[in-house]
């Protein structure tokens, strides 16, 4: 929690500024939207943080989302697969993708960047071919399944913001986050991941099966991305194979990095990743609500994230200096 203070502060600043500038920001409807979007991106952010913790990278997330996003309606609408078959099938597909990445990276010793970059291109092209590039959707069917993404649970009247409904994706995010945090911090496998992310060799010399753990990280990442793709598809209900999920890997990676994952590996906080994802969506939302021209949005998001990372780095340095001074004193004593 402590190391996420910086990003939490950034979140609070943007939140408060927007709320003051435009009161409709904190109405229930907008907050629901914001929470839903943040949750969707948070989910894929958690997935990629596992890979980043091992010191790897997964650039194919957006394309996996695109592939699952169009494979799902393709199976369900075009081939009339039942939900109970289609959903496991697409999740299995993403599992196979993750397994492929992991094996290529660990067994053939290919670079993760290269493997997943090729994945980015391959899955996108494959999805487009599969669906003939036709825009897909569920029309007005599958309302039940779509509740996973667009469902809302009424919480009644809340102070300041009125009748509030909790978006279902937020609950999914919470469950996933708790599972991920427990896995990472309370199980031996999580410890393995953190150790090998810092120093793969030392982990191997300590008897850790680093190969299996790295493969596991890529599998987790792809399966979570596939699950995210399913939710994104159910949310937007209009899936264009050529563009659906484009660049989402960058949102996910940015969220993970903002949340304290080091691209050098070995560091990561699930809570931070959730906040990181929320900041990105908060910024988009603020830009719209404050009436800032759309054309400026990338510039603003880039600048704010950079500012956040710089602040974080400065805070870390000050802390390190303090610790050094403290240690010097202890040594003298």
């Amino acid at each position: 929690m402590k190391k996420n203070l910086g990003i939490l502060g950034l979140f609070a600043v943007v939140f408060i500024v927007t709320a003051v500038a435009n009161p409709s920001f904190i109405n229930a409807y907008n907050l629901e939207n914001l929470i839903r979007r943040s949750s969707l991106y948070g989910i894929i952010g958690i997935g990629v943080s596992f890979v980043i913790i091992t010191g790897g990278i997964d650039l194919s997330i957006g394309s996996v989302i695109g592939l699952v996003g169009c494979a799902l309606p393709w199976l369900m609408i075009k081939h009339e697969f039942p939900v109970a078959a289609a959903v496991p099938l697409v999740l299995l597909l993403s599992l196979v993708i993750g397994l492929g990445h992991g094996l290529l990276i660990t067994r053939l010793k290919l670079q993760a960047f290269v493997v997943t970059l090729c994945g980015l291109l391959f899955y996108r092209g494959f999805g487009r071919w599969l669906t003939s590039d036709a825009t897909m959707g569920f029309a007005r069917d599958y309302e039940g399944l779509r509740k996973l993404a667009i469902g809302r649970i009424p919480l009644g009247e809340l102070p300041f913001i009125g009748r509030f409904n909790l978006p279902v994706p937020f609950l999914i995010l919470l469950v996933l986050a708790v599972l991920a945090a427990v896995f990472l911090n309370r199980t031996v496998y999580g410890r393995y991941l953190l150790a090998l992310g810092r120093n793969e060799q030392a982990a191997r010399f300590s008897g850790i099966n680093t190969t299996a753990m790295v493969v596991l990280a890529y599998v987790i990442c792809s399966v979570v991305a596939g699950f995210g793709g399913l939710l994104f598809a159910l949310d937007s209900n209009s899936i264009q194979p050529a563009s659906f999920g484009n660049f989402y890997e960058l949102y996910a990676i940015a969220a993970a990095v903002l949340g304290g994952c080091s691209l050098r590996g070995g560091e990561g906080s699930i809570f931070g990743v959730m906040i990181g994802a929320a900041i990105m969506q908060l910024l988009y939302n603020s830009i719209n609500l404050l009436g800032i021209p759309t054309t400026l949005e990338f510039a603003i998001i880039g600048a704010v994230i950079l500012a956040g990372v710089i602040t974080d780095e400065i805070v870390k340095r000050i802390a390190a200096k303090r610790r050094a001074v403290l240690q010097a004193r202890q040594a003298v004593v």
Partner: protein
Amino acid sequence: MTASASSLAQLLEVRHVTKRFPGVTALSSVSLMLGTGEVLALIGENGAGKSTLMKILAGVQEPDEGELLIDGRIERVDSVQTAQRLGIALIHQELNLSDNLDVGANIFLGREPLKRGFIDRQKIREDSTTLLKRVGLDVSPDTIVNRLPIGQQQLVEIARALSINARVLIMDEPTSSLSTHEAERLFEVVKDLRQKGVSVIYISHRLGEVRELADRVTVFRDGRNAGDLSREEITHDRMVQLMVGRDISQFYARKPHKAGDVVLQVDGLRTQAHPDHALSFSVRSGEVVGVAGLVGAGRTEMLNVLFGVDPAVAGVIQVDGKLCRMSSPRDAIAAGLALVPEDRKQQGLVLEMTVRTNIGLAGLKKNQKAGGFLNDAQEGRDSAAMIEKLRIKTPNERQIVQYLSGGNQQKVVLGKWLSMQPKVLLLDEPTRGIDIGAKQEIYLLMEELAEQGVAILFVSSEMEEILGMSDRTLVMHEGRITGELQGEELSEEAVMQLATGNVAAAVAG
């Protein structure tokens, strides 16, 4: 040769040079002379100060005291560029070539001749051809360096040194990675250069080479001059005497161990580094076996294969009489082995993690609770026990290992393995780079473990450690076990003879 060298004016003179590093005096008032067209061999044990002097001559480091004279004039060699201007070139043990570039580009790297702002390829090609001819290398300057065998790459390095008109060529262990044939080729080139008036400082552990090449030998020991030998005096035994020749300290007073049953039995083990040589030996419970040898003798490779880090080419490993396949460190740990690796920071520790986490790292799986959950309590108990037992100096168990001293870091590595209660403890240079107090603590710990019945196999390049700690010593040379010394036979001379490949002399001694 000797006559001509002494009659000529001294080309290079080192006068009373001292170099101190924090905590160590690497060189203490050493002197050295080199005549024009002379081949001077510089020998000494690891850590005797040879490399430090070479770095000073090549301008990489500056001496704290003393002076360098070239052509009788005092010169300040404060940078590699200055050294090159003065005609001193250093050829490192590890070659410094950009092996993705061609030969010509490497020879003129950083000093490319230009023509209208562009690299003058034609000139590079012509000049390179001339230089390559001088070192007797018959390849095109356009050949990419990594296509050449290692011996020819070495000649490219020499050609590069000649391209700056080097008068003094310093060669640091030039034959360490060459085949016999390649080495002979190199000797020819060195002799030829001498003929042409180039002086060579030749550093080598291989006393045979020294005998063949050197006009004169200077021996260093503990950062001091230990003696000089002229051409006629150069014999294997004289050199070894000068290199060692000191008392073994009282540091290692120890009780004799009562060795039990064989715990580790190795038969016909072949490593990838030296597949031609089969290694066979055994270690008994409660026995401390030292592995001596020079750098590159294949000792670390042997431990890594035993511990499953690298695959074996062939061979059988038995622990407690049971056949074990060591295909990963996991297998080795399961069989009861533990390895304190040579490279503590890269292989022994996760530096950014805490003392406690590092101590617990190997035992995570063993101690896990149902469902793969961490056993925090056990980890806490283990780390507290190890911090106390090994007297690890740390503010608390949550300290990041990076901020500990080398000795304490090494104790953390030991703690990690002791908490696993291994049957066989493999130690690779266990006291390298740590202070004297921690060293002794580690020796005491080895004693204690041996008493408890742990079989210990330790690799060391420190002669005193080998002599002082081991019940039995295996000596390795170029991938082979050249001998096994025990009791009375175990002497510095004997180890040195075996380590330099002189089996007959060792047996005689």
